[in-house]
């Protein structure tokens, strides 16, 4: 898709206006979804209608930007047509690629539209060489989005063994649970991450302020966290909550603290490891976020290619928890 030495900057677009902002801010590609369960950011009031998608693709292509359509959830039996219709639409609108996770969807796309480029979503949960090879050999996927759980040396050796391109997350909300394998939200609320494309859905969220001004965040009646008036609150995502276990007196972040990924300092290493594309997370975030983050990363990648120094700490204020992490990328000790 690009020359081996210039990685692509792949940016989120939750609305047509955000998409235009991402394009104008220097994205090489934007990714977006439809207003239904076919993508893993099926949030209320977000995403694009077919008409908006058509216009957005026109705008992006006019400006030399590619459009990737996320179809990365898992159709439950009996509802496959919603996903196959979405594949048909993506093809008819000349999308540059679709990002898939489900084997049935991948097979449908490959059989019907051999010329439609397939990217493998992080939702397919393929962190090993053999898992990736399964998808490249079965469905001819051209790019895999890697789970955020591999170190840079692991990415480097993976790149040498597989035939497709590699895309890595570099900024945004840090997902912890193995993607495509989480039914925590369904257990708590009845809506499924894998099938409905939601995670801690807003209609089950409640914010409750106590007499002492502490803020309780709840998901369908389960208390996920509690913030005193001096603490920065977060969204009640189950895996970012605080809980109790018998052998600890304190409550603690049992899974992960609300952190954002920011790999600015590892950018040169990632480029030399052979990463073909860098992905920014955040389709559900505002235009303000998109403009700030995309233009900063555009500059950072161009700077890194010129071997300059990069600092992106100014993006800290946009992150949940106002804290950032390098995740697993630097060291396995994260695990």
């Amino acid at each position, binding site marked *: 898709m690009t020359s081996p030495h210039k990685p692509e900057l792949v940016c989120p677009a939750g609305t047509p206006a955000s998409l235009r902002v991402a394009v104008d801010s220097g994205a090489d590609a934007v990714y977006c979804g439809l207003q239904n369960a076919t993508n893993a950011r099926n949030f209320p009031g977000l995403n694009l209608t077919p008409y908006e998608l058509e216009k957005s693709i026109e705008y992006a292509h006019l400006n030399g930007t590619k459009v990737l359509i996320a179809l990365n959830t898992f159709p439950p*039996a009996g509802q496959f047509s919603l996903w196959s219709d979405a594949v048909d639409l993506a093809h008819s609108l000349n999308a540059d690629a679709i990002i898939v996770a489900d084997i049935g969807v991948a097979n449908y796309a490959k059989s019907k539209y051999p010329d439609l480029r397939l990217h493998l979503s992080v939702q397919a949960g393929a962190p090993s060489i053999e898992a990736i090879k*399964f998808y490249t050999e079965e469905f001819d996927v051209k790019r895999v989005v890697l789970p955020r759980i591999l170190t840079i040396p692991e990415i480097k050796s993976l790149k040498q063994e597989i035939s497709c391109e590699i895309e890595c997350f570099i900024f945004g909300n840090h997902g912890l649970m193995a993607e495509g394998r989480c039914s925590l939200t369904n257990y708590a609320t009845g809506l499924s991450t894998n099938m409905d494309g939601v995670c801690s859905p807003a209609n089950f969220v409640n914010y409750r302020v106590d007499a002492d001004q502490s803020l309780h965040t709840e998901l369908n009646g389960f208390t996920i966290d509690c913030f005193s008036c001096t603490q920065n609150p977060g969204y009640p995502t189950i895996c970012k909550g605080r809980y109790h276990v018998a052998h600890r007196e304190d409550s603690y972040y049992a899974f992960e603290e609300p952190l954002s990924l920011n790999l600015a300092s590892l950018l040169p290493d990632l480029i030399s490891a052979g990463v073909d594309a860098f992905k920014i997370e955040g389709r559900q975030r505002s235009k303000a976020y998109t403009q700030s983050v995309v233009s900063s990363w555009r500059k950072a990648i161009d700077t890194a290619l010129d071997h300059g120094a990069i600092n992106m700490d100014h993006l800290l204020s946009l992150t949940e928890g106002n804290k950032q992490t390098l995740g697993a990328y630097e060291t396995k000790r994260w*695990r």
Partner: protein
Amino acid sequence: MNKGQNNLTIGPILFHWPAEQKRDFYFKIADESPVDTVYIGEVVCSKRSPFFEEYYDNVTDRLTRAGKKVILSSLSEVMVTRERKMTEELAQNEIYEVEANDSSALYHLRGRRHRIGQYYNTYNEETLKHLVLNGAYHVTLPAELPRESLIVLGSVAKQLGISLEVQISGRVGLAFSARCYHARSYGRVKDNCQFVCEHDPDGMSLKTLTGQNFLCINGIQTLSYNYLNLLPQIPELIDMGIDNFRISPHSSHTEIIIKAAHSVLQGSISGEEATSIIQSSIGDTPCFNGFYHHVAGHEWAEHNYQLSE
């Protein structure tokens, strides 16, 4: 109800029990239990495997001689070289069939007769058909699938002539991660975990800040706190075309649950009676069936469908 071919199965032991406890559990299953199929293997953490190595042959032998079908289950999360190698060796063994729980196992099993595990994302009929073309003849479906999807899959399975299985009892795996949450609770990481997961033979209970029972931690796996109970649904599952019923083992009461499930299969007790038996043996821990009824998973829904629906 077609009783002839309906099978009770024992899922892989998810927890880090002492090797002798596992061995004794399997011996008891072999000697006394009316189950048809036993899944063996380390599904959660590759670090645990070496502990049971020396007992494998003895256990599989005893189960086979008792007429139980033995299936080896593969790891759910395969990342590092050791895990990749483990999965490849498992897939290439020529003695027992393998149940694939991730795509790397599937990579090795393609073209050969194999099973698909419940941690593999077989959500719809198109995926099912593709997996069958690759050699899958028996698929255990993800626990979160609702009834209406099971009906469709059951019908397709009948047409394809393959078997379907669902978990009907025990805590349900809800998520996996690369990070070990057991180790984390003790301030450690996976590399220096000191096998703290052995302290919790049924998972480590995780409560909310307001004291609600919510989840359980088992190494890299997060499970429901509540116990799945689909025993009352056995007759309608059979009607749908699902003929294998998985009981996920726990450190106690598994024999009681097996007996109750067997009785439901025989038609000698009702679903309600089975529920009563299970609830009184697991005590305060609630049962749940929310996924099946397409409500919040953790809930227990009292809904008896007409078999003709």
